[in-house]
C-alpha cells in the first residue's frame, strides 16, 4: 500500500467551509421561529423535497470529488530502502478512487454506449494472418463476453435485472430507516409512521423523498450494474469513459454555482447596506461603482478579466506545484470574476430594502436611544435582509451552471484540463458532424446539466415562495 498525502485546493477549502457555514446557519435558524416556519414550508412542499433529494445526491458526488490527495510513487527497483519517497504529480480525488474502474479503463477512441466494439473500423490481423477491416473489440467494455454476438443482449438485460433487484433492496433499506426515523421523532409505532408517510402526512413531504429516491435507485442500480463491465455512456475521442467525465463535471458546476455568489456576498451585503443606510456621498460612490460595473456587458467584462488572468497565470508558472493547482486557481479566479459581474444586482436590491428599513419606527427608536450605527446595522438591518440574500443565493445557482457551459464554450471558462459540462460540450460539438454521428457525450452532458439545473430552479422557486413575505 502506497502512502498518500492530502492536498487542499482552494476551492475544496471554500466548498467545505460553505458546507460548514450552512450547517451553522441551520443550527442558528433552529432557534428562530420565523426561520423554522419558513423552512418547514420548504419541507412540506413536494416539489421542494424532490429537488432537495436530487440536489443532495449531486452534492454528495461533488463533495466526494473535493477530497484531494496525491499518491507517493512506488520506489524504483534499485532504490535504497530508506530513500526519500517521491510524490506523484497527479492529484486525485475521493471520487477518482471510488470510480477507479471507470477512470482507468481507457479505450483507444470512441465507442458507443454499452458497446463491446470500437466505433470505427480498423484494419486488424486475423488469426490466419490475413488482414481485414472490422470493428475491433474493446479492451475493457464487454471484455468478459466470450461470444459477444450471441451473449451481448442477454448479458446487458441480465445486468439490468440484477441492478433493478439491488435498487429495490437499497430502496427498501432506506425507506425502512426513514420511516423508523419518522416514527422516533413523532413518538408513534412504526406501522403508524408507515401509514402516515404513505398518506403524505408524515410531517415533511417524506413520500416525495421516497418516490424520488425510488426513481433514482431504479436508474442508478442498472447503471452501476452495467458500469462494472461496460461503458454506460460510451467513450469519448481519447477513450475516456463518458459517465466518469459527467460525474467529474458535477464538482465544477457546484463550485462555480455556489462559490461565485459566496465570494462576493460580503462585498454586496456590506456595500448595499452602507449605501442604503448612510446615504450621502457614500451612497453616491457605491452607486457609481455598481453602475459602471453594470454598464459593461457581462460576457465582455468576464472575457476581458479572464484573458488578463490567463496572462497572470501563464507568466507565473512557479506559483503552482501541480497542474491541478493551476486549474484550481483558474477555477477560483473565474468564480471571483463571475461574482464581480453579478454582485451589483444583489447590492442594488439590498440598498433599496435598507432605504425602506431605515425609516421604520424600530430603527428610528434605536437611533433615538443612541445605539451606535454599527450595532443598528448588525442587529436591526442585517437580520431583516437575510431572506433576500438567501433568495439571491439560490436563484443565482442555476443560472451560473448554465453560464459556465457557455463561457467554457467561448473559451473564457474553466481551464481546458478541468472536466466540466462546458468543456465536454465544447469537445463534443464537432462530433455531430461525423458520419455516423457521435452523440453520447453531448447527450450525457446535457442530461446531467438539465437535471441539475431543473432541480435547482424548482428548489429556488420553493425557497422564494417560503421566504419572500410578498409571495
Amino acid at each position, binding site marked *: 500500500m502506497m502512502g498518500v498525502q492530502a492536498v487542499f485546493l482552494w476551492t475544496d477549502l471554500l466548498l467545505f467551509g460553505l458546507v460548514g457555514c450552512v450547517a451553522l446557519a441551520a443550527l442558528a435558524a433552529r432557534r428562530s421561529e420565523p426561520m423554522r416556519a419558513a423552512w418547514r414550508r420548504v419541507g412540506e412542499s413536494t416539489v421542494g423535497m424532490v429537488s432537495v433529494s436530487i440536489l443532495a445526491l449531486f452534492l454528495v458526488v461533488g463533495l466526494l470529488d473535493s477530497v484531494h490527495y496525491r499518491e507517493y510513487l512506488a520506489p524504483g527497483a534499485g532504490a535504497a530502502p530508506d530513500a526519500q519517497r517521491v510524490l506523484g504529480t497527479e492529484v486525485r480525488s475521493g471520487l477518482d478512487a471510488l470510480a477507479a474502474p471507470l477512470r482507468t479503463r481507457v479505450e483507444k477512441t470512441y465507442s458507443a454506449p454499452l458497446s463491446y466494439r470500437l466505433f470505427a473500423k480498423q484494419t486488424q490481423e486475423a488469426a490466419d494472418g490475413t488482414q481485414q477491416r472490422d470493428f475491433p473489440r474493446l479492451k475493457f467494455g464487454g471484455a468478459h463476453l466470450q461470444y459477444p454476438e450471441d451473449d451481448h443482449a442477454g448479458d446487458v438485460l441480465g445486468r439490468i435485472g440484477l441492478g433493478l433487484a439491488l435498487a429495490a433492496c437499497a430502496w427498501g433499506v432506506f425507506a425502512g430507516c426513514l420511516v423508523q426515523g419518522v416514527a422516533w421523532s413523532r413518538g408513534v409505532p412504526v406501522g403508524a409512521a408507515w401509514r402516515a408517510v404513505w398518506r403524505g402526512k408524515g410531517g415533511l413531504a417524506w413520500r416525495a423523498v421516497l418516490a424520488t429516491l425510488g426513481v433514482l435507485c431504479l436508474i442508478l442500480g442498472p447503471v452501476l450494474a452495467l458500469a462494472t463491465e461496460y461503458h454506460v455512456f460510451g467513450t469519448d475521442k481519447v477513450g475516456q469513459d463518458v459517465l466518469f467525465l459527467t460525474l467529474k463535471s458535477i464538482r465544477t458546476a457546484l463550485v462555480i454555482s455556489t462559490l461565485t455568489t459566496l465570494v462576493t456576498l460580503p462585498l454586496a451585503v456590506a456595500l448595499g447596506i452602507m449605501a442604503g443606510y448612510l446615504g450621502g456621498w457614500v451612497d453616491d460612490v457605491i452607486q457609481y461603482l455598481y453602475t459602471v460595473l*453594470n*454598464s*459593461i456587458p457581462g460576457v465582455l467584462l468576464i472575457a476581458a478579466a479572464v484573458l488578463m488572468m490567463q496572462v*497572470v497565470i501563464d507568466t507565473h508558472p512557479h506559483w503552482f506545484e501541480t497542474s491541478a493547482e493551476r486549474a484550481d486557481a483558474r477555477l477560483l479566479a473565474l468564480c471571483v470574476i463571475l461574482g464581480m459581474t453579478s454582485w451589483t444586482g444583489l447590492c442594488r436590491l439590498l440598498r433599496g430594502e435598507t432605504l425602506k428599513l431605515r425609516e421604520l419606527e424600530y430603527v428610528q427608536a434605536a437611533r433615538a436611544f443612541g445605539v451606535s450605527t454599527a450595532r443598528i446595522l448588525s442587529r436591526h438591518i442585517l437580520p431583516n435582509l437575510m431572506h433576500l440574500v438567501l433568495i439571491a443565493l439560490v436563484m443565482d445557482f442555476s443560472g451560473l451552471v448554465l453560464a459556465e457551459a457557455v463561457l467554457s464554450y467561448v473559451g473564457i471558462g474553466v481551464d481546458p484540463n478541468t472536466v466540466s459540462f462546458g468543456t465536454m460540450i465544447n469537445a463534443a460539438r464537432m462530433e*455531430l458532424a461525423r458520419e455516423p454521428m457521435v452523440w453520447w457525450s453531448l447527450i450525457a452532458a446535457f442530461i446531467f446539466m438539465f437535471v441539475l439545473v431543473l432541480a435547482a430552479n424548482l428548489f429556488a422557486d420553493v425557497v422564494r415562495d417560503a421566504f419572500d413575505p410578498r409571495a
Partner: protein
Amino acid sequence: MFAYIVRRLLYAPLILIGVNLLTFALFFVVNTPEDMARMQLGAKRVTPEAIERWKVERGYDKPLLLNAGEQGLAKLTDTIFFEKSLRMFVFDFGRADDGRDIATEIRTRMGPSLAVALPTFVLGLLVTVSLALLLVFFRGTYLDFQGVVLCVAMMSISSLFYIIGGQWLVSKVWHLVPISGYGEGVDATRFLVLPVIIGVVAGIGGSARWYRTIFLEEAGKDYVRTARAKGLSELQALFRHVLKNGMIPILTGVVVVIPSLFMGSLLTESFFGIPGLGSYTIDAINAQDFPVVRAMVFIGSVFYIVGLIFTDLSYTLVDPRVKLE
C-alpha cells in the same frame, strides 16, 4: 423633465470614464505590456529585442500615464493611457492584431448582427407576451399549470442545446436550411431563419414565466375587477387593461437591451457563422486580440448606457404617473 434628461445625459460620460479607467486598469496595469508580449510570443525562448519590437509595433512602448521625456502637453498625450484609452471616446480604437482598423470593422459588422438580433428580439417579445397572456387567460386551470412546468423545464435547458439540437434537426436531418453561413441582401434570409427561430425558442421559458407573474399581479388588481364588473369580457379586460399596465415593468427589462442588439449574440453568431460583432468578439477572444476585446467592452457599455436613457424616456411616454423629478 428636461432637466432630468440633461442630468442623465451628463451622467453618461461620467460612467463611460469609469468604464474607460476600468478597462485601462484591466489591460495595462494588471499585466504590463511586457507580460502580454511574452505570452503572445510564447513564454519561453523570447528575446528582449522581440518583446521590444512587439511593443513598438503596437505602440505599447510608451509610458503608462506620464511621459517625462516629452515637452508640454505631449507629456500627457504621448502615453499609453491617452493613445489607447482616451482615444476610444472619439471611437478611434486603433488597429487589431491583424492590422485592420477596428472602427471600420465594427461598422461593417453591425449590419449582420442587427439582421439576426432585431427579428429575434421583436418576434421573441411578441411570442412571449402572447404566451404569457394566454397563460393568464387560463389561470388556475390545468393548462396554466402545465404551461408553467413547461416554462421551467425550457429555462433549465442550456442555450447550447437549443442551438446544437436545432442545427442538427433542421439542417442536418431535415435539410431545410443551410447549417451556417451568411449571404448578401435577400439571400441572407435563408441563413437567418434558423438562428432567429432558435433565439426565440431559447428565450421563451424564462421570459414567458416572468411576464406571466407580472400580468397575474396586474390582473388581480381592483381596477381590473371593476372593468369586469362593468361587463367587459375577460379578453377585453386582458388586452385593454392588463396588457397595457403590465407593459410598464416589462419595458424596464426590454428597452435597455434594444441598443445592445447591435452587439449581437456571441453564441448564435459563432455557431451560425454570421459575420457580426458577436463572432468578431469570440474570434478576438480566441486569438487573444486585446485591442479588439478592449474596444468591444467600451462599445458595449456605450450601447448599454444609451439603453438606460431610452428606458427612462420610455417611462415618461407610457406611464403618465412618472414625472421624473
